[in-house]
């Protein structure tokens, strides 16, 4: 630093010499540009922008200048320092982007590596489809009823107008419990839930009843002694077979697609009168396969219809057994096999897959079938 300028002679210190200033800026800019990474840039900042850098020295020299010279010198030094700082900032930003890119590149993984570390759960399709059906009926105002599988004979047979000598009440069909006079069986259908509901709930009654039922069949590809049904029951004033057919058509469309309908064929069940078998229009071919050997349909065996279940108007004798006046109320009921529905809906060819509990089978259905 120069000595104080006592005599006010216009002497310019070397550091403020414009040529020297320009040289310091040039040196700084080239050092900044040469910095390859952030540590190098830090070194350049130390040399060219710190308190000991030529430009900082120049800045301090301004104080020794006569007042008339200070403004011009300050402006020149300020511009020089500004240029250097701007270059530093720009270089730092560029180096940071480059550094992030380098790290990201080095962290690349093979995303096709499979992480199957934790087990993945699944629900049995018999239960998910039962809930699906129940939900559909809940959406039109039906309640859901479940009940005991070991049932009084009166609920399973007598109240349903299946009299003592009916062939269904033999050991060939029904699992009997304990002694001959136990009065109890493993329920052979979900229909006792009709009785349980009508005994406890005054009409109007609208319920669906999914559940497990039993018949003494040996397990094979199409039979199982333990299976599932879903039963629907409506008892109200003024219900007719038109309501029954309409509800079944709605059910078919809900489960199998817009426009799929049902067909009723006269049949016999003790607990309904009139009674009918329910056929489902084939949802796979919609009847296109009938008489059309070029387009065979496996789902319906090219029949156009699939046997789905049974239905009818609740027999007045059943209503009377529950203390309901059939002159005032009428009702309809229907029942479908869940396994059967699943088999044709999902193309399951062997009943044993549904009952053996192989986790590979369930897993394929995921959480919602």
């Amino acid at each position, binding site marked *: 630093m120069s000595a104080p300028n006592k005599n006010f002679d216009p002497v310019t210190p070397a550091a403020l010499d414009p040529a020297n200033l320009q040289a310091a800026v040039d040196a700084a800019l080239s050092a900044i540009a040469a910095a390859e990474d952030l540590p190098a840039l830090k070194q350049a900042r130390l040399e060219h922008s710190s308190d000991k850098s030529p430009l900082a020295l120049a800045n301090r020299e301004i104080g020794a200048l006569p007042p008339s010279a200070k403004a011009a010198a300050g402006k020149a030094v300020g511009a020089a320092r500004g240029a250097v700082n701007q270059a530093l900032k720009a270089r730092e930003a560029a180096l940071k982007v480059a550094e992030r890119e380098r790290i990201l590149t080095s962290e690349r993984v093979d995303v096709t590596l499979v992480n199957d570390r934790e087990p993945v759960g699944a*629900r049995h399709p018999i239960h998910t489809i039962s809930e699906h059906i129940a939900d559909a009926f809940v959406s039109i105002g039906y309640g859901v009823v479940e009940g005991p599988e070991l049932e*009084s*004979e009166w609920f399973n047979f007598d109240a349903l107008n299946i009299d003592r000598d009916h062939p269904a009440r033999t050991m060939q069909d029904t*699992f009997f419990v*304990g002694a001959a006079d*136990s009065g109890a069986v493993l329920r052979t259908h979900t229909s006792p839930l009709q009785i349980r509901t009508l005994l406890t709930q005054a009409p109007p009654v609208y319920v669906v009843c999914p559940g497990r039922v039993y018949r003494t069949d040996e397990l094979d590809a199409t039979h199982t002694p333990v299976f599932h049904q879903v039963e629907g029951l409506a008892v109200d004033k003024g219900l007719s077979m038109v309501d029954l057919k309409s509800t079944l058509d709605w059910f078919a469309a809900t489960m199998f697609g817009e426009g799929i309908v049902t067909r009723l064929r*006269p049949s016999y069940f003790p607990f309904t009168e009139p009674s009918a078998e329910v056929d489902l229009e084939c949802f796979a071919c919609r009847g296109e396969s009938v008489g059309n050997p070029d387009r065979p349909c496996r789902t319906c065996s090219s029949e156009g219809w699939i046997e789905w279940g049974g239905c009818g108007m609740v027999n007045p004798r059943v209503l009377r057994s529950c203390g309901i006046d059939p002159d005032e109320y009428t009702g309809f009921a229907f029942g479908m096999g869940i396994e059967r529905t699943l088999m044709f809906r999902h193309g399951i060819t062997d009943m044993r897959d549904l009952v053996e509990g192989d986790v590979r089978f*369930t897993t394929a259905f995921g959480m919602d079938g």
Partner: protein
Amino acid sequence: MRAPLSWIKEYAALPEQVSAREVAERLIAVGLEVESVDEVSVEGPLVVGRVLEIEELTEFKKPIRFCQVDVGDQVRGIICGATNFAVGDLVAAALPGAVLPGGFQISARKTYGHVSDGMLASGRELGINDEYDGILILAEGEVGQDARGVLGLDDAVLDIAVTPDRGYCLSIRGIAREAALAFDVEFSDPAAAVPALEAAGPTQPVDLRAGADRFTTRVLTGVDPSAASPAYMVRRLTQCGMRPVSLAVDITNYVMLELGQPLHAFDADKLTGAIQVRLPHDGETLETLDHVQRTLDPQDVVIADDSGAIALAGVMGGLTTEIDDASTNVVLEAAHFGASRVAATSRRHKLSSEASRRFERGVDDDLALAASNRAAHLFAELAGADIGGLVDIDSREAITGIAFDPQLPTRIVGLDIPEATVTAVLTRIGCNVDGQSVQPPSWRPDLREPIDLVEEVARVVGYDRIPSRGPAMGTGIGLSESDRLLRRLRRRPAELGLVEVLSYPFLGEAELDALGLPADDPRRVAVRLANPLSDEQPLMRTTLLPGLLAVARRNVGRGADSLQVYEYGQVFRDVAEVRAPVADAGTRPEGHVLDAMLSALPRQPEHLAVLVAGAWSRSGWWGTGRDCDWSDAIRLARAVARAVGVHLDVETDAHAPWHPGRCARLTVDGHLAGHAGELHPDVVEAYGLPARAAAVELDLSVLLAAATPVVAAPAVSTFPVAKEDVALVVDRELSAEQLRKALERGGGALLESVRLFDVYEGPQVPDDKKSLAFSLRLRASDRTLTEDDITGVREAALAAAAELGAQLRG
């Protein structure tokens, strides 16, 4: 019931060219379940042949015959394995080029050392019946003639599954009546066409005491025992799936198929005294035609003579009075037995016959005499019999009319059905309609109430006329709260990574033994089935674990090396002997009877069981995995309960089938909800599961009862947290949960949480001690805690722990 179309057409004036398929479709539309239509399925040359020579080939293990058969244009050598024919018999010969049912092609081929130039066919090979212990012997035919006509193979046969309400359709008469109805054409009743018979000549007296409201006997003498059944009869019996036996038996079967009335022929010379129709004596026995010696039940009805029981009424005849090939005098029985009596007898003796199947479903009670007369005519015509006298005991009640509102079909079906249509339909099915009283015909005992008549109207009007509109809307407002909660419980394990399986709810004592249950364990109180599928599993399950273990074993057997499975379902508890009262149908039982029916049943709560074995998290490129253990079982049990807001308390327990030192008893508010932990190594070994397999069984009814469907929101403090760690030395026997609860209780309201983070047993603590380290989080709802606050809470918590003998680890 198999019904040949040609036979149906004899009584129903169907269109000449109608196809069997169309008949089937129309019958289905009026309510007959036509299961199949069997049409001609033999192609190529099938001719009548006559056996000229038989050479027995004896060098083979079974009898083999090389036959020379005249087939019209030539004599062919044919190898045959059957022995039921002789030289001179007419047989059905399938010649090279013929294709039998199932695509079986006939060609000349070398076999048993000869060229076999065709095949002699059995009923089974031609798809006529199931007989295959012999070939078909034809009763008539021209050698070289196409055998299809002789066998009825140019006819279609409808196979109809007859529902219990349509007994009359177990006859051609009934099916033809339905076909005429379906096509709206004329029906000529074959029963009405039977000419009347004189009742003169010798009679067989009858003493009718029980079981029948109509009983007839007709004596036939001079029957030619050598007379053979005519070809049309053999063909039709065969088409209907019955085996021709002898003329006498064939006539009774033929008339039964034609009209629906079961008949029985006794050898009159083997009868002693009057025929009695009565209940059996105490311990009375009867050997029936199937060679089974039967001890009769007091509720059976028998036909008897002075020698004792000679037939099981409505079910099967006895051996002692059987017609044989020397019988010349016959007593023909045609009767009407009560449906429920016959059904009960058939069930008791596990004996179902053509007769019992018909009586069970109800036989036309006005048919016995016509059927008897029809058979008598056939005996006279075909066997030269002299028709003797008739005994006809008739105690039938008159059929009462049904009071019927003609508006009822409109109300039930939902279509506008005019009264004229209702009357016309009921008349066509045979009813007598007189104003509002409708008298059903004698062949429809199933028509008892107005609603039965509605069904008749509906099926004839046609179910296909019923329109569709929107569904019948219910009055409910969604799933009930308990349904929603139950669904959460049933779904939760799958969300936690478990796979749901189902198993049969049957159980054997050996399985309960394998679980190591003590003799007085309540899970041994099980309902026993009277007719289990397997004698090994006669019980209804009281626990889900055996079923789940068996499923696990099956999966391991199929290659699974780790398992996370669960099952939910009902168990059957607390009652071994069920005694539920029975009541009549048609009226609501009295309250106490209903209560007794319900309370007699076992408790049937829904349980949920979990089984985990092998790796929970797997090893892989990320590093090593982790095996399931007892703590996973408890964690999963508690996570399931939390799905309905239930906090399960955990205590140490020793409970089979769990490892006695690794079993947790799970409770909610002191009520037992289940158990969880590692399975006993004996059980793991018995089922071949990966070591350290763990299981849970929960009673969902307990969880539902304690569920908190509406969660009370916590107050979330925004003041700073203070953290304190404490390590405590306690007796090894003390449970961590007890100590944690003591700290929680002692710490009071300012203690936000207490979490166990380390367990140490080893040289740095005495042998019978362990060190448990907890981290405490402290926080106030209204201020920042001071040093004094923190020290106070810590001291208070430690003081509570000290009551359990805990000392701060130095």
